[in-house]
Protein backbone atom coordinates (compact mmCIF):
# COMPACT_ATOMS: atom_id res chain seq x y z
CA UNK A 1 0.00 0.00 0.00
CA UNK A 2 1.31 3.45 -0.89
CA UNK A 3 0.36 6.59 0.94
CA UNK A 4 -0.23 9.62 -1.24
CA UNK A 5 0.84 12.81 0.52
CA UNK A 6 0.13 16.47 -0.02
CA UNK A 7 3.21 17.45 -2.01
CA UNK A 8 5.33 20.42 -1.16
CA UNK A 9 5.11 22.54 -4.27
CA UNK A 10 7.54 25.15 -3.03
CA UNK A 11 9.86 26.02 -0.22
CA UNK A 12 7.50 28.52 1.36
CA UNK A 13 4.40 26.38 1.10
CA UNK A 14 3.07 24.82 4.28
CA UNK A 15 -0.34 23.58 3.19
CA UNK A 16 -2.48 22.88 0.19
CA UNK A 17 -6.17 22.68 -0.64
CA UNK A 18 -7.53 19.77 -2.61
CA UNK A 19 -9.78 21.24 -5.27
CA UNK A 20 -10.61 18.11 -7.23
CA UNK A 21 -10.12 14.38 -7.18
CA UNK A 22 -9.61 13.21 -10.75
CA UNK A 23 -9.95 9.55 -9.69
CA UNK A 24 -12.58 7.94 -7.51
CA UNK A 25 -12.06 5.29 -4.86
CA UNK A 26 -11.92 1.97 -6.70
CA UNK A 27 -10.44 3.46 -9.90
CA UNK A 28 -7.26 1.90 -11.10
CA UNK A 29 -4.42 4.24 -11.79
CA UNK A 30 -1.02 4.21 -13.41
CA UNK A 31 2.06 5.70 -11.90
CA UNK A 32 2.31 9.37 -13.01
CA UNK A 33 -1.31 9.50 -14.09
CA UNK A 34 -3.04 12.68 -12.81
CA UNK A 35 -4.71 11.84 -9.49
CA UNK A 36 -5.85 15.11 -7.95
CA UNK A 37 -5.64 18.86 -8.22
CA UNK A 38 -4.45 21.15 -5.48
CA UNK A 39 -4.51 24.85 -5.01
CA UNK A 40 -2.00 26.98 -3.17
CA UNK A 41 -2.11 30.74 -3.36
CA UNK A 42 -2.74 31.61 -7.02
CA UNK A 43 -1.48 28.34 -8.35
CA UNK A 44 -3.32 25.18 -9.14
CA UNK A 45 -1.42 22.03 -9.78
CA UNK A 46 -2.29 18.63 -11.08
CA UNK A 47 -0.65 15.93 -9.00
CA UNK A 48 0.31 12.62 -10.55
CA UNK A 49 -0.03 9.32 -8.75
CA UNK A 50 3.18 8.17 -7.05
CA UNK A 51 2.39 4.50 -7.79
CA UNK A 52 0.34 2.17 -9.93
CA UNK A 53 -2.59 0.29 -8.41
CA UNK A 54 -6.08 1.06 -7.23
CA UNK A 55 -7.16 4.16 -5.32
CA UNK A 56 -8.26 2.50 -2.09
CA UNK A 57 -9.05 5.45 0.11
CA UNK A 58 -9.48 9.20 -0.11
CA UNK A 59 -8.75 10.78 3.24
CA UNK A 60 -9.05 14.44 2.38
CA UNK A 61 -12.16 15.69 0.66
CA UNK A 62 -12.38 18.32 -2.05
CA UNK A 63 -12.21 21.79 -0.54
CA UNK A 64 -10.20 20.69 2.49
CA UNK A 65 -6.84 22.17 3.35
CA UNK A 66 -4.11 20.10 4.94
CA UNK A 67 -0.46 20.53 5.80
CA UNK A 68 2.21 19.49 3.34
CA UNK A 69 3.14 15.81 3.72
CA UNK A 70 -0.22 14.87 5.22
CA UNK A 71 -1.56 11.65 3.79
CA UNK A 72 -4.43 12.46 1.44
CA UNK A 73 -5.10 9.03 -0.07
CA UNK A 74 -3.84 5.49 -0.29
CA UNK A 75 -3.15 3.37 -3.31
CA UNK A 76 -3.27 -0.38 -3.00
CA UNK A 77 -3.85 -3.51 -5.02
CA UNK A 78 -7.19 -4.31 -6.64
CA UNK A 79 -9.70 -5.64 -4.09
CA UNK A 80 -8.21 -3.65 -1.27
CA UNK A 81 -10.83 -0.92 -1.34
CA UNK A 82 -11.89 -0.06 2.14
CA UNK A 83 -15.51 0.12 2.98
CA UNK A 84 -16.95 1.99 5.91
CA UNK A 85 -16.60 0.05 9.13
CA UNK A 86 -13.33 -1.59 8.37
CA UNK A 87 -11.24 1.52 8.49
CA UNK A 88 -8.19 0.62 10.50
CA UNK A 89 -7.00 4.13 11.17
CA UNK A 90 -9.17 6.84 12.61
CA UNK A 91 -10.54 8.78 9.67
CA UNK A 92 -9.70 12.41 9.24
CA UNK A 93 -12.05 14.20 11.56
CA UNK A 94 -14.61 16.51 10.03
CA UNK A 95 -12.92 19.27 11.97
CA UNK A 96 -9.95 19.18 9.64
CA UNK A 97 -11.99 21.17 7.17
CA UNK A 98 -10.06 24.33 6.50
CA UNK A 99 -8.24 24.06 9.80
CA UNK A 100 -4.67 23.37 8.99
CA UNK A 101 -3.93 23.76 12.68
CA UNK A 102 -5.29 20.38 13.59
CA UNK A 103 -3.09 17.43 12.78
CA UNK A 104 -4.29 16.12 9.48
CA UNK A 105 -3.12 12.58 9.96
CA UNK A 106 -2.87 10.52 13.08
CA UNK A 107 0.24 8.67 12.04
CA UNK A 108 3.54 9.84 10.64
CA UNK A 109 3.04 10.01 6.90
CA UNK A 110 5.13 7.87 4.64
CA UNK A 111 5.84 8.99 1.13
CA UNK A 112 5.96 6.82 -1.93
CA UNK A 113 9.55 5.86 -1.33
CA UNK A 114 8.74 4.71 2.18
CA UNK A 115 10.68 7.45 3.92
CA UNK A 116 9.23 8.46 7.25
CA UNK A 117 8.76 12.19 7.39
CA UNK A 118 9.75 14.19 10.40
CA UNK A 119 6.76 14.15 12.70
CA UNK A 120 7.18 17.86 13.32
CA UNK A 121 6.17 18.50 9.72
CA UNK A 122 2.90 16.80 10.39
CA UNK A 123 1.01 19.96 11.19
CA UNK A 124 1.02 23.51 9.99
CA UNK A 125 1.98 24.38 13.54
CA UNK A 126 5.06 22.25 13.35
CA UNK A 127 5.91 23.58 9.94
CA UNK A 128 5.57 27.10 11.13
CA UNK A 129 8.02 26.39 13.90
CA UNK A 130 10.40 24.74 11.52
CA UNK A 131 10.07 27.25 8.77
CA UNK A 132 10.44 30.45 10.71
CA UNK A 133 13.58 32.29 9.75
CA UNK A 134 16.80 31.57 11.64
CA UNK A 135 16.67 35.10 13.06
CA UNK A 136 13.19 34.53 14.48
CA UNK A 137 14.21 31.18 15.93
CA UNK A 138 17.29 32.78 17.47
CA UNK A 139 15.20 35.54 19.06
CA UNK A 140 12.74 32.91 20.29
CA UNK A 141 15.55 30.86 21.76
CA UNK A 142 17.15 33.86 23.49
CA UNK A 143 13.86 34.87 25.05
CA UNK A 144 12.78 31.30 25.76
CA UNK A 145 9.64 31.72 23.69
CA UNK A 146 7.77 28.75 22.26
CA UNK A 147 7.13 29.82 18.67
CA UNK A 148 3.99 27.76 18.49
CA UNK A 149 2.45 30.17 21.02
CA UNK A 150 3.07 33.19 18.80
CA UNK A 151 0.45 34.29 16.32
CA UNK A 152 2.16 34.36 12.92
CA UNK A 153 1.21 36.94 10.29
CA UNK A 154 3.79 35.83 7.71
CA UNK A 155 3.40 33.42 4.81
CA UNK A 156 1.31 30.41 5.81
CA UNK A 157 1.05 31.76 9.32
CA UNK A 158 4.76 31.92 9.77
CA UNK A 159 6.08 33.94 12.67
CA UNK A 160 7.83 37.08 11.46
CA UNK A 161 10.37 39.17 13.30
CA UNK A 162 7.64 41.74 14.09
CA UNK A 163 5.41 38.98 15.48
CA UNK A 164 8.04 37.64 17.84
CA UNK A 165 9.18 41.08 18.97
CA UNK A 166 5.57 42.12 19.51
CA UNK A 167 4.96 38.96 21.50
CA UNK A 168 8.00 39.54 23.68
CA UNK A 169 6.95 43.17 24.20
CA UNK A 170 3.49 42.08 25.30
CA UNK A 171 4.95 39.41 27.53
CA UNK A 172 6.77 42.07 29.54
CA UNK A 173 3.56 43.82 30.41
CA UNK A 174 1.82 40.79 31.81
CA UNK A 175 1.43 37.07 31.65
CA UNK A 176 0.16 35.62 28.40
CA UNK A 177 -2.56 33.04 28.51
CA UNK A 178 -1.58 29.63 27.31
CA UNK A 179 -2.42 28.56 23.78
CA UNK A 180 -5.98 29.55 22.95
CA UNK A 181 -8.42 26.70 23.45
CA UNK A 182 -9.26 24.97 20.19
CA UNK A 183 -12.33 26.52 18.64
CA UNK A 184 -15.59 24.62 18.60
CA UNK A 185 -15.95 22.18 15.76
CA UNK A 186 -19.35 21.71 14.23
CA UNK A 187 -20.72 19.01 12.05
CA UNK A 188 -23.67 19.93 9.88
CA UNK A 189 -26.87 18.45 11.22
CA UNK A 190 -25.91 18.48 14.90
CA UNK A 191 -28.49 21.10 15.82
CA UNK A 192 -26.61 23.57 13.69
CA UNK A 193 -26.73 24.89 10.17
CA UNK A 194 -23.20 25.40 8.81
CA UNK A 195 -22.69 27.94 6.03
CA UNK A 196 -19.35 28.99 4.55
CA UNK A 197 -18.54 32.67 4.90
CA UNK A 198 -18.97 34.83 1.82
CA UNK A 199 -15.89 36.52 0.50
CA UNK A 200 -17.16 39.87 1.71
CA UNK A 201 -17.74 38.38 5.17
CA UNK A 202 -14.20 36.98 5.23
CA UNK A 203 -12.74 40.29 4.12
CA UNK A 204 -14.67 42.12 6.81
CA UNK A 205 -13.52 39.58 9.39
CA UNK A 206 -9.89 39.89 8.35
CA UNK A 207 -10.05 43.63 8.24
CA UNK A 208 -11.69 43.95 11.64
CA UNK A 209 -9.21 41.59 13.29
CA UNK A 210 -6.42 43.54 11.67
CA UNK A 211 -7.88 46.79 12.94
CA UNK A 212 -8.38 45.52 16.48
CA UNK A 213 -4.82 44.22 16.50
CA UNK A 214 -3.26 47.28 14.90
CA UNK A 215 -4.81 50.22 16.71
CA UNK A 216 -5.24 50.75 20.42
CA UNK A 217 -8.79 52.08 20.18
CA UNK A 218 -9.97 54.81 22.54
CA UNK A 219 -13.46 56.30 22.52
CA UNK A 220 -14.98 59.62 23.44
CA UNK A 221 -18.72 60.21 23.30
CA UNK A 222 -20.33 63.66 23.03
CA UNK A 223 -23.95 64.64 23.27
CA UNK A 224 -25.09 67.04 20.56
CA UNK A 225 -28.26 69.11 20.52
CA UNK A 226 -29.74 68.67 17.05
CA UNK A 227 -32.43 71.37 17.32
CA UNK A 228 -30.85 73.68 14.81
CA UNK A 229 -29.87 70.97 12.33
CA UNK A 230 -33.34 69.52 12.61
CA UNK A 231 -34.91 72.92 12.00
CA UNK A 232 -32.67 73.63 9.01
CA UNK A 233 -33.33 70.22 7.59
CA UNK A 234 -37.08 70.70 7.79
CA UNK A 235 -36.78 74.14 6.24
CA UNK A 236 -34.57 73.10 3.33
CA UNK A 237 -35.75 69.58 2.71
CA UNK A 238 -38.22 70.47 -0.05
CA UNK A 239 -35.75 72.75 -1.76
CA UNK A 240 -33.15 69.97 -1.83
CA UNK A 241 -35.66 67.43 -2.96
CA UNK A 242 -36.55 69.68 -5.89
CA UNK A 243 -32.87 69.52 -6.78
CA UNK A 244 -33.01 65.75 -6.66
CA UNK A 245 -31.22 65.33 -3.32
CA UNK A 246 -32.57 63.73 -0.17
CA UNK A 247 -31.29 65.87 2.67
CA UNK A 248 -30.29 63.68 5.59
CA UNK A 249 -28.69 64.36 8.96
CA UNK A 250 -25.66 62.45 7.68
CA UNK A 251 -24.95 65.24 5.18
CA UNK A 252 -24.85 67.83 7.98
CA UNK A 253 -22.58 65.64 10.06
CA UNK A 254 -20.34 64.95 7.06
CA UNK A 255 -20.04 68.66 6.31
CA UNK A 256 -19.03 69.50 9.87
CA UNK A 257 -16.70 66.50 10.18
CA UNK A 258 -14.89 67.60 7.02
CA UNK A 259 -14.37 71.07 8.48
CA UNK A 260 -13.09 69.46 11.66
CA UNK A 261 -10.65 67.30 9.70
CA UNK A 262 -9.31 70.47 8.06
CA UNK A 263 -8.91 72.01 11.48
CA UNK A 264 -7.30 68.94 13.10
CA UNK A 265 -5.21 67.22 10.42
CA UNK A 266 -3.92 64.59 12.85
CA UNK A 267 -7.36 62.95 12.68
CA UNK A 268 -6.99 62.75 8.89
CA UNK A 269 -3.55 61.18 9.09
CA UNK A 270 -2.10 57.68 9.02
CA UNK A 271 0.94 55.92 10.43
CA UNK A 272 3.70 54.68 8.16
CA UNK A 273 6.37 52.97 10.21
CA UNK A 274 7.82 55.73 12.36
CA UNK A 275 6.35 58.51 10.22
CA UNK A 276 3.10 60.37 10.60
CA UNK A 277 1.57 60.89 7.18
CA UNK A 278 -0.82 63.85 7.00
CA UNK A 279 -3.23 63.38 4.12
CA UNK A 280 -3.81 66.55 2.13
CA UNK A 281 -6.99 65.13 0.59
CA UNK A 282 -10.06 64.60 2.69
CA UNK A 283 -11.65 61.46 1.32
CA UNK A 284 -14.67 60.73 3.43
CA UNK A 285 -15.88 57.14 3.79
CA UNK A 286 -19.51 56.51 4.68
CA UNK A 287 -20.28 53.01 5.94
CA UNK A 288 -23.31 51.47 4.22
CA UNK A 289 -24.96 48.36 5.61
CA UNK A 290 -25.73 45.66 3.05
CA UNK A 291 -27.78 42.51 3.43
CA UNK A 292 -24.90 40.39 4.64
CA UNK A 293 -22.14 42.82 5.25
CA UNK A 294 -21.15 46.39 4.79
CA UNK A 295 -19.14 48.50 2.42
CA UNK A 296 -17.55 51.90 2.81
CA UNK A 297 -17.83 54.02 -0.33
CA UNK A 298 -15.61 57.07 -0.32
CA UNK A 299 -16.37 60.66 -1.32
CA UNK A 300 -13.07 61.82 -2.77
CA UNK A 301 -12.01 65.39 -2.02
CA UNK A 302 -15.12 65.78 0.05
CA UNK A 303 -13.95 69.19 1.28
CA UNK A 304 -14.44 70.60 -2.21
CA UNK A 305 -18.19 69.98 -2.02
CA UNK A 306 -20.89 72.15 -0.53
CA UNK A 307 -23.75 70.67 1.45
CA UNK A 308 -25.82 70.00 -1.68
CA UNK A 309 -22.88 68.31 -3.39
CA UNK A 310 -22.24 66.19 -0.30
CA UNK A 311 -25.89 65.26 -0.04
CA UNK A 312 -25.95 64.14 -3.66
CA UNK A 313 -22.71 62.20 -3.29
CA UNK A 314 -23.95 60.42 -0.16
CA UNK A 315 -27.30 59.51 -1.79
CA UNK A 316 -25.59 58.29 -4.91
CA UNK A 317 -22.89 56.21 -3.23
CA UNK A 318 -25.30 54.65 -0.75
CA UNK A 319 -27.71 53.70 -3.54
CA UNK A 320 -25.04 52.21 -5.70
CA UNK A 321 -23.48 50.42 -2.73
CA UNK A 322 -26.80 48.71 -2.07
CA UNK A 323 -27.24 47.78 -5.73
CA UNK A 324 -23.59 46.65 -6.01
CA UNK A 325 -22.84 49.18 -8.70
CA UNK A 326 -19.84 50.87 -7.12
CA UNK A 327 -16.67 51.24 -9.12
CA UNK A 328 -13.70 49.65 -7.38
CA UNK A 329 -11.94 52.99 -6.97
CA UNK A 330 -14.97 54.34 -5.14
CA UNK A 331 -14.23 52.24 -2.06
CA UNK A 332 -10.57 53.18 -1.91
CA UNK A 333 -8.29 55.85 -0.54
CA UNK A 334 -10.59 56.89 2.30
CA UNK A 335 -8.90 59.05 4.92
CA UNK A 336 -11.68 59.11 7.54
CA UNK A 337 -14.95 57.23 8.02
CA UNK A 338 -18.40 58.02 9.34
CA UNK A 339 -20.62 55.16 10.44
CA UNK A 340 -24.18 55.32 11.60
CA UNK A 341 -25.17 52.71 14.19
CA UNK A 342 -28.00 55.07 15.18
CA UNK A 343 -29.97 53.97 12.13
CA UNK A 344 -30.79 50.80 14.00
CA UNK A 345 -31.60 52.64 17.21
CA UNK A 346 -28.29 52.45 19.03
CA UNK A 347 -27.76 55.31 21.44
CA UNK A 348 -24.15 55.36 20.30
CA UNK A 349 -21.66 52.90 18.81
CA UNK A 350 -18.05 51.95 19.45
CA UNK A 351 -16.89 51.37 15.88
CA UNK A 352 -13.56 49.86 14.85
CA UNK A 353 -11.28 52.03 12.76
CA UNK A 354 -11.21 51.46 9.01
CA UNK A 355 -7.46 50.83 8.57
CA UNK A 356 -5.12 52.50 7.79
CA UNK A 357 -7.12 55.49 8.99
CA UNK A 358 -6.70 56.66 12.56
CA UNK A 359 -10.23 57.63 13.56
CA UNK A 360 -13.86 56.88 12.89
CA UNK A 361 -16.95 58.89 13.76
CA UNK A 362 -19.97 56.94 15.00
CA UNK A 363 -23.36 58.61 14.89
CA UNK A 364 -26.00 57.44 17.34
CA UNK A 365 -29.76 57.71 17.11
CA UNK A 366 -31.37 61.13 17.17
CA UNK A 367 -34.13 61.13 19.78
CA UNK A 368 -36.08 63.70 21.69
CA UNK A 369 -34.77 63.95 25.25
CA UNK A 370 -35.18 66.10 28.28
CA UNK A 371 -32.21 68.44 28.41
CA UNK A 372 -31.32 71.22 30.78
CA UNK A 373 -31.10 74.64 29.15
CA UNK A 374 -30.54 77.71 31.36
CA UNK A 375 -31.62 75.71 34.41
CA UNK A 376 -34.90 74.75 32.76
CA UNK A 377 -35.85 71.37 31.42
CA UNK A 378 -36.59 71.36 27.72
CA UNK A 379 -37.30 68.73 25.10
CA UNK A 380 -34.72 68.67 22.33
CA UNK A 381 -33.58 66.22 19.64
CA UNK A 382 -30.30 64.85 20.88
CA UNK A 383 -27.64 62.76 19.15
CA UNK A 384 -24.63 61.02 20.65
CA UNK A 385 -21.52 61.04 18.53
CA UNK A 386 -18.50 58.85 19.18
CA UNK A 387 -14.98 59.26 17.99
CA UNK A 388 -13.06 56.00 17.95
CA UNK A 389 -9.40 56.94 17.61
CA UNK A 390 -6.03 55.26 17.37
CA UNK A 391 -4.22 56.26 20.52
CA UNK A 392 -0.87 55.72 18.84
CA UNK A 393 -1.51 58.94 16.98
CA UNK A 394 -4.59 60.66 18.34
CA UNK A 395 -4.69 61.47 22.04
CA UNK A 396 -7.76 62.10 24.13
CA UNK A 397 -7.14 65.84 23.98
CA UNK A 398 -7.12 65.76 20.16
CA UNK A 399 -10.33 63.75 20.14
CA UNK A 400 -11.88 66.17 22.61
CA UNK A 401 -10.99 69.18 20.48
CA UNK A 402 -12.27 67.45 17.37
CA UNK A 403 -15.58 66.44 18.91
CA UNK A 404 -16.08 69.82 20.60
CA UNK A 405 -15.61 71.45 17.21
CA UNK A 406 -18.12 69.10 15.61
CA UNK A 407 -20.63 69.65 18.42
CA UNK A 408 -20.25 73.42 18.33
CA UNK A 409 -20.68 73.57 14.54
CA UNK A 410 -23.69 71.25 14.53
CA UNK A 411 -25.44 73.13 17.31
CA UNK A 412 -24.81 76.45 15.56
CA UNK A 413 -24.97 75.26 11.95
CA UNK A 414 -24.70 78.33 9.72
CA UNK A 415 -27.39 78.54 7.10
CA UNK A 416 -24.82 80.10 4.77
CA UNK A 417 -23.15 76.67 4.53
CA UNK A 418 -26.22 75.35 2.83
Amino acid at each position, binding site marked *: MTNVVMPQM*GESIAEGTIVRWIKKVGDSIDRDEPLF*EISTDKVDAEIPSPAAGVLTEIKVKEGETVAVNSVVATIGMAGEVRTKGEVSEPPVPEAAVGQAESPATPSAPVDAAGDVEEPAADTAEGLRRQKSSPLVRKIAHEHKVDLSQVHGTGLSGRVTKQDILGYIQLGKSGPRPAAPPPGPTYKPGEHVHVVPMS*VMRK*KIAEHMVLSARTSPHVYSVYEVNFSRVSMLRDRKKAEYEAGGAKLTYTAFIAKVAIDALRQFPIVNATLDGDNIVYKKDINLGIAVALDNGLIVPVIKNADEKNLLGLTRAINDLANRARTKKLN*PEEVQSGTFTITNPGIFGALYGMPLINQPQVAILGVGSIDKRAVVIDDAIAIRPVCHITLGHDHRLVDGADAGRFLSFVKERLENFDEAWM
Partner: protein
Amino acid sequence: MTRIIEVHRLGVVPYGEALEIQKHLVELRKANEIPDQLLLLEHPPVITLGVKTRNDRSHVVASAETLDEEGVEVFESGRGGDVTYHGPGQLVGYPIMDLRPDRCDVHRYVRDLEEVLIRVAAAFGVAGGRSSGLTGVWVGDEKLAAIGVRIARWVTSHGFALNVSTNLAHFNLIVPCGIADKGVTSLERLTKRSVAMDEVAGVTADAFASFFDRSPVQPALPPLLESHR
Protein backbone atom coordinates in the same frame (compact mmCIF):
# COMPACT_ATOMS: atom_id res chain seq x y z
CA MET B 1 23.72 26.59 -22.57
CA THR B 2 20.81 28.97 -22.40
CA ARG B 3 17.46 27.38 -23.02
CA ILE B 4 15.33 28.59 -25.86
CA ILE B 5 11.90 30.08 -25.41
CA GLU B 6 9.63 30.46 -28.40
CA VAL B 7 7.65 33.67 -28.27
CA HIS B 8 4.34 33.74 -30.16
CA ARG B 9 2.46 36.98 -30.58
CA LEU B 10 -0.99 35.80 -31.46
CA GLY B 11 -3.05 38.99 -31.56
CA VAL B 12 -6.66 38.63 -30.43
CA VAL B 13 -7.61 35.04 -29.57
CA PRO B 14 -10.97 33.92 -28.11
CA TYR B 15 -10.51 32.48 -24.64
CA GLY B 16 -11.73 28.99 -25.52
CA GLU B 17 -9.32 28.78 -28.41
CA ALA B 18 -6.42 29.92 -26.27
CA LEU B 19 -7.32 27.19 -23.76
CA GLU B 20 -7.13 24.56 -26.50
CA ILE B 21 -3.82 25.89 -27.78
CA GLN B 22 -2.39 25.81 -24.27
CA LYS B 23 -3.62 22.28 -23.68
CA HIS B 24 -1.86 21.07 -26.82
CA LEU B 25 1.34 22.90 -26.05
CA VAL B 26 1.36 21.59 -22.47
CA GLU B 27 1.15 18.01 -23.74
CA LEU B 28 3.91 18.64 -26.26
CA ARG B 29 6.05 20.33 -23.65
CA LYS B 30 5.52 17.48 -21.17
CA ALA B 31 6.62 15.06 -23.87
CA ASN B 32 9.64 17.31 -24.47
CA GLU B 33 8.75 17.67 -28.13
CA ILE B 34 8.92 21.46 -28.06
CA PRO B 35 11.01 24.01 -26.15
CA ASP B 36 9.51 26.46 -23.64
CA GLN B 37 6.81 28.72 -25.08
CA LEU B 38 5.54 32.19 -24.30
CA LEU B 39 2.18 33.11 -25.83
CA LEU B 40 1.36 36.81 -25.88
CA LEU B 41 -2.16 37.77 -26.88
CA GLU B 42 -5.35 39.63 -26.11
CA HIS B 43 -8.79 38.17 -25.47
CA PRO B 44 -12.18 39.47 -26.53
CA PRO B 45 -14.14 40.48 -23.41
CA VAL B 46 -14.47 37.42 -21.15
CA ILE B 47 -14.91 36.64 -17.48
CA THR B 48 -13.04 33.54 -16.37
CA LEU B 49 -13.53 31.56 -13.22
CA GLY B 50 -10.61 29.86 -11.52
CA VAL B 51 -10.71 26.36 -10.07
CA LYS B 52 -11.77 27.72 -6.70
CA THR B 53 -14.85 29.44 -8.09
CA ARG B 54 -16.05 27.15 -10.79
CA ASN B 55 -19.11 26.24 -8.78
CA ASP B 56 -19.57 29.66 -7.27
CA ARG B 57 -20.38 32.67 -9.32
CA SER B 58 -20.94 35.07 -6.45
CA HIS B 59 -17.95 37.13 -7.59
CA VAL B 60 -19.56 37.80 -10.91
CA VAL B 61 -21.71 40.69 -9.77
CA ALA B 62 -23.19 41.54 -13.14
CA SER B 63 -26.40 39.86 -14.22
CA ALA B 64 -26.51 37.50 -17.19
CA GLU B 65 -28.38 40.18 -19.13
CA THR B 66 -25.73 42.82 -18.45
CA LEU B 67 -23.02 40.41 -19.53
CA ASP B 68 -24.91 39.73 -22.75
CA GLU B 69 -25.38 43.42 -23.40
CA GLU B 70 -21.70 44.09 -22.89
CA GLY B 71 -20.78 41.13 -25.08
CA VAL B 72 -18.88 39.43 -22.29
CA GLU B 73 -18.47 35.65 -22.22
CA VAL B 74 -18.14 33.64 -19.01
CA PHE B 75 -15.67 30.78 -18.95
CA GLU B 76 -14.45 28.17 -16.51
CA SER B 77 -10.73 27.74 -16.70
CA GLY B 78 -8.34 25.33 -15.03
CA ARG B 79 -6.07 27.96 -13.63
CA GLY B 80 -5.57 28.96 -10.02
CA GLY B 81 -7.07 32.05 -8.53
CA ASP B 82 -10.54 33.46 -8.37
CA VAL B 83 -12.61 35.21 -11.00
CA THR B 84 -10.98 37.61 -13.43
CA TYR B 85 -11.73 39.67 -16.48
CA HIS B 86 -9.87 39.72 -19.79
CA GLY B 87 -10.49 42.02 -22.69
CA PRO B 88 -9.00 44.17 -25.40
CA GLY B 89 -6.15 46.38 -24.25
CA GLN B 90 -4.94 43.77 -21.78
CA LEU B 91 -1.72 41.93 -22.55
CA VAL B 92 -2.18 38.30 -21.66
CA GLY B 93 0.89 36.09 -21.32
CA TYR B 94 0.75 32.31 -21.18
CA PRO B 95 4.15 30.76 -20.54
CA ILE B 96 4.22 27.03 -21.27
CA MET B 97 7.44 26.31 -19.52
CA ASP B 98 9.07 23.37 -17.81
CA LEU B 99 10.14 24.53 -14.37
CA ARG B 100 12.43 21.58 -13.96
CA PRO B 101 15.15 21.23 -12.98
CA ASP B 102 15.94 24.45 -11.15
CA ARG B 103 12.63 26.28 -10.63
CA CYS B 104 10.41 23.67 -8.98
CA ASP B 105 8.68 26.03 -6.59
CA VAL B 106 5.23 27.34 -7.40
CA HIS B 107 5.47 30.36 -5.13
CA ARG B 108 8.80 31.29 -6.54
CA TYR B 109 7.34 31.04 -10.02
CA VAL B 110 4.48 33.37 -9.13
CA ARG B 111 6.88 35.82 -7.48
CA ASP B 112 9.08 35.61 -10.60
CA LEU B 113 6.15 36.47 -12.86
CA GLU B 114 5.44 39.44 -10.61
CA GLU B 115 9.07 40.51 -10.89
CA VAL B 116 8.98 40.36 -14.70
CA LEU B 117 5.82 42.48 -14.77
CA ILE B 118 7.26 44.97 -12.27
CA ARG B 119 10.19 45.39 -14.65
CA VAL B 120 7.83 45.83 -17.61
CA ALA B 121 5.91 48.51 -15.70
CA ALA B 122 9.19 50.20 -14.77
CA ALA B 123 10.10 50.39 -18.46
CA PHE B 124 7.05 52.62 -18.84
CA GLY B 125 7.92 54.69 -15.81
CA VAL B 126 5.41 53.00 -13.54
CA ALA B 127 6.55 51.84 -10.11
CA GLY B 128 4.64 48.62 -9.57
CA GLY B 129 5.00 46.58 -6.44
CA ARG B 130 3.71 43.63 -4.48
CA SER B 131 0.96 43.70 -1.93
CA SER B 132 1.62 41.36 0.96
CA GLY B 133 -0.62 38.32 0.75
CA LEU B 134 -2.12 39.36 -2.58
CA THR B 135 -0.73 37.98 -5.79
CA GLY B 136 -0.27 40.31 -8.73
CA VAL B 137 1.38 43.62 -9.43
CA TRP B 138 -0.05 46.58 -7.61
CA VAL B 139 0.31 50.31 -7.82
CA GLY B 140 -0.90 51.55 -4.48
CA ASP B 141 -4.23 49.90 -3.83
CA GLU B 142 -4.87 49.18 -7.47
CA LYS B 143 -4.02 46.08 -9.41
CA LEU B 144 -2.07 46.55 -12.59
CA ALA B 145 -1.52 42.89 -13.43
CA ALA B 146 -3.20 39.68 -12.34
CA ILE B 147 -1.60 36.26 -12.08
CA GLY B 148 -3.17 32.81 -12.14
CA VAL B 149 -1.16 29.74 -12.89
CA ARG B 150 -1.65 26.06 -13.50
CA ILE B 151 1.12 23.51 -13.17
CA ALA B 152 1.07 19.92 -14.29
CA ARG B 153 4.23 17.95 -13.77
CA TRP B 154 6.08 21.24 -13.46
CA VAL B 155 4.91 22.41 -16.87
CA THR B 156 3.21 25.78 -16.51
CA SER B 157 0.14 27.13 -18.24
CA HIS B 158 -2.08 30.17 -17.84
CA GLY B 159 -0.04 33.05 -16.52
CA PHE B 160 -0.54 36.79 -16.32
CA ALA B 161 -2.72 39.62 -17.55
CA LEU B 162 -1.29 43.13 -17.66
CA ASN B 163 -3.69 46.04 -18.09
CA VAL B 164 -2.30 48.26 -20.81
CA SER B 165 -5.35 50.18 -22.01
CA THR B 166 -8.07 47.87 -20.71
CA ASN B 167 -11.62 49.19 -20.34
CA LEU B 168 -11.44 49.24 -16.55
CA ALA B 169 -15.18 49.69 -16.22
CA HIS B 170 -15.55 46.07 -17.27
CA PHE B 171 -13.92 45.02 -14.00
CA ASN B 172 -17.06 46.29 -12.30
CA LEU B 173 -18.79 43.20 -13.62
CA ILE B 174 -16.82 41.14 -11.12
CA VAL B 175 -15.11 41.30 -7.74
CA PRO B 176 -11.58 40.89 -9.15
CA CYS B 177 -9.86 37.88 -7.61
CA GLY B 178 -12.45 37.92 -4.84
CA ILE B 179 -10.85 40.99 -3.32
CA ALA B 180 -13.73 43.33 -2.73
CA ASP B 181 -11.93 46.36 -1.43
CA LYS B 182 -9.21 46.94 -4.02
CA GLY B 183 -9.32 48.42 -7.51
CA VAL B 184 -7.72 47.98 -10.87
CA THR B 185 -5.62 50.27 -12.99
CA SER B 186 -3.78 50.25 -16.30
CA LEU B 187 -0.51 51.48 -17.79
CA GLU B 188 -2.44 54.09 -19.75
CA ARG B 189 -4.25 55.40 -16.73
CA LEU B 190 -1.02 55.56 -14.74
CA THR B 191 1.12 57.15 -17.45
CA LYS B 192 -1.71 59.39 -18.70
CA ARG B 193 -0.68 58.75 -22.28
CA SER B 194 -1.52 56.14 -24.86
CA VAL B 195 0.65 53.06 -24.71
CA ALA B 196 0.99 50.77 -27.74
CA MET B 197 0.13 47.13 -27.07
CA ASP B 198 2.85 46.08 -29.48
CA GLU B 199 5.48 47.96 -27.56
CA VAL B 200 4.37 46.42 -24.26
CA ALA B 201 4.38 42.94 -25.80
CA GLY B 202 7.92 43.48 -27.05
CA VAL B 203 9.16 44.75 -23.70
CA THR B 204 7.40 41.88 -21.92
CA ALA B 205 8.93 39.21 -24.18
CA ASP B 206 12.40 40.65 -23.58
CA ALA B 207 11.93 41.06 -19.85
CA PHE B 208 10.51 37.57 -19.51
CA ALA B 209 13.29 35.89 -21.50
CA SER B 210 16.02 37.80 -19.75
CA PHE B 211 14.61 37.18 -16.27
CA PHE B 212 14.10 33.46 -16.83
CA ASP B 213 17.45 33.26 -18.60
CA ARG B 214 16.04 31.97 -21.88
CA SER B 215 16.99 33.11 -25.36
CA PRO B 216 13.87 34.25 -27.17
CA VAL B 217 13.14 33.11 -30.71
CA GLN B 218 10.10 34.03 -32.74
CA PRO B 219 9.42 31.10 -35.05
CA ALA B 220 6.52 30.79 -37.42
CA LEU B 221 3.47 29.32 -35.74
CA PRO B 222 3.78 25.57 -35.40
CA PRO B 223 1.16 23.68 -37.41
CA LEU B 224 -0.77 22.74 -34.31
CA LEU B 225 -1.21 26.33 -33.36
CA GLU B 226 -2.02 27.24 -36.94
CA SER B 227 -4.90 24.79 -36.97
CA HIS B 228 -6.48 26.78 -34.19
CA ARG B 229 -6.20 30.15 -35.87
